[in-house]
């Protein structure tokens, strides 16, 4: 077996995942009257509203920590862009015909950067929503912008999140185990991340 994620990396991932799921569920409760019951199930809407921004801060801290750990791994290279041109093959599971990639492929890198930048927008707009009265009345345009930015960027993360969860659990077999136990088989590493496999095995 090959070590793919260190204990620290897995811990960060799950801190981010669990905090994201909490803010996602409570956020959906405030998003639509038809989903307000989620807030009730999670201890009542006032409680959900109380914890939503605090848990979101934890999520953002996890994302920043991730940035520190994965920054160089997540840099998008010309290898990735070439891989991206054959994305149709990836979608059709014709993985053998894809150009080899490093530790993360273009999709994983996009997911990371989308969550990071959407997280920044959510943090800034969320701060305005948290303390709207701190924004003076003459600058109320910021309050108006914040509601739109918060919900739009949240929806973008939800789209990315759906794809990420699907791929990590159902589509890419072995992926879920790797983020739990930290290891993958050599065959998995060779198929999905050939350049990384070559590097870590010294081939």
């Amino acid at each position, binding site marked *: 077996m090959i070590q793919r994620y260190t204990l620290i990396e897995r811990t960060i991932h799950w801190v981010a995942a669990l905090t994201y799921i909490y803010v996602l569920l409570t956020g959906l*409760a*405030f*998003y*639509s*009257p*038809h989903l*307000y019951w989620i*807030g009730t199930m999670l201890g009542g*809407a*006032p409680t*959900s*509203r*109380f914890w939503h921004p605090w848990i979101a801060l934890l999520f953002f801290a996890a994302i920043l920590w991730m940035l520190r750990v994965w920054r160089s791994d997540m840099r998008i290279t010309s290898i990735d862009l070439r891989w991206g041109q054959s994305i149709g093959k990836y*979608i*059709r*599971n014709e*993985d053998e015909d894809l150009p080899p990639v490093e530790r993360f492929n273009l999709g994983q890198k996009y997911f990371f950067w989308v969550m990071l930048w959407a997280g920044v927008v959510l943090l800034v707009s969320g701060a305005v*929503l948290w303390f*709207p*009265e701190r924004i003076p*009345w003459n600058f*109320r345009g910021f*309050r*108006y*912008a*914040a*509601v*739109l930015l918060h*919900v*739009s960027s949240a*929806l973008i993360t*939800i*789209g990315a999140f*759906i*794809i990420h969860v*699907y791929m990590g659990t*159902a*589509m*890419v*077999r*072995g992926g879920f185990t790797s983020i739990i136990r930290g290891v993958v*088989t*050599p*065959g*998995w590493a*060779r*198929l*999905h991340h050939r350049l990384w496999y070559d590097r870590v095995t010294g*081939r």
Partner: protein
Amino acid sequence: MSSATLRVQKISGHAGPVPGEGTQRQQQVAKLIDTTTCIGCKACEVACLEWNDLPFRETVFDNTYQTMPETEWNYWNLIKFNEHTREDGSFQWLMRKDGCMHCADPGCLAACPADGAIVQYQNGIVDFQQENCIGCQYCVTGCPFNIPKFNPHTKKVFKCTLCSDRVGQGLEPACIKACPTGCLHFGTKDDMRDLGQTRVQQLKDHSGFQNAGLYDPAGVGGTGVMYVLHDITNPEAYGGLPSNPRVPWTVRLWKGPLKWLGNAAMIGGLIGVTMHYLRFGPKQVEDRGDRP
């Protein structure tokens, strides 16, 4: 606050129809505030505190007679004092009783996500139900008049109730009862509009206020609190009364098209990944051991 005797016509954050909607029509009620006869005595401010059992709070001196810069969570009725210089250089006191306008199309209610935290009664009063409030303050963003105010301690938002508890019992609001000059009037919306227009005509014919007018802004569907102004062309001079108040378009977009677009995208995403799985299935790795 009290909804016992008033019928509800709109509910914030509510999935499905309003119970009992349309079973009975009620007369719209309205306050008419004649700024031309207000003397700035603040009796209405005191009456509001008295009736609503609000503690008298610290005032903020800002070189005017105004009690504080704007309404607060426990100070719902505030006379705004403005020393106005007219075009001919003459001086004019503009005093306006500021508070919730009880919009026919309330931005606070449109923005509120909490089921039943904001209601509009069939008589037009817009009322906050603090027991359902979750403290998100979206109403603060939705209101074009800067009225809802947050109590950070209880995490609830408050504003003028138009004394819905008194009106439900057939009484006039406390501020109206206290006004010594009779510049505050209360009745049906139609009567108050007629009275206001009569007063406007009087100001034009006898007092030389050619720009006098009745403030009942159409951008929020008309309001349950109307003003007679000396100069309807410049409401901003009355302590920042907006000349064309509207529910912010971002709030409309967020609560309208964006919600349905988002719902469609989320459902589409779930269907999309499911279809992908049915069509292409998982990526299996044939393990060939550790051979290259």
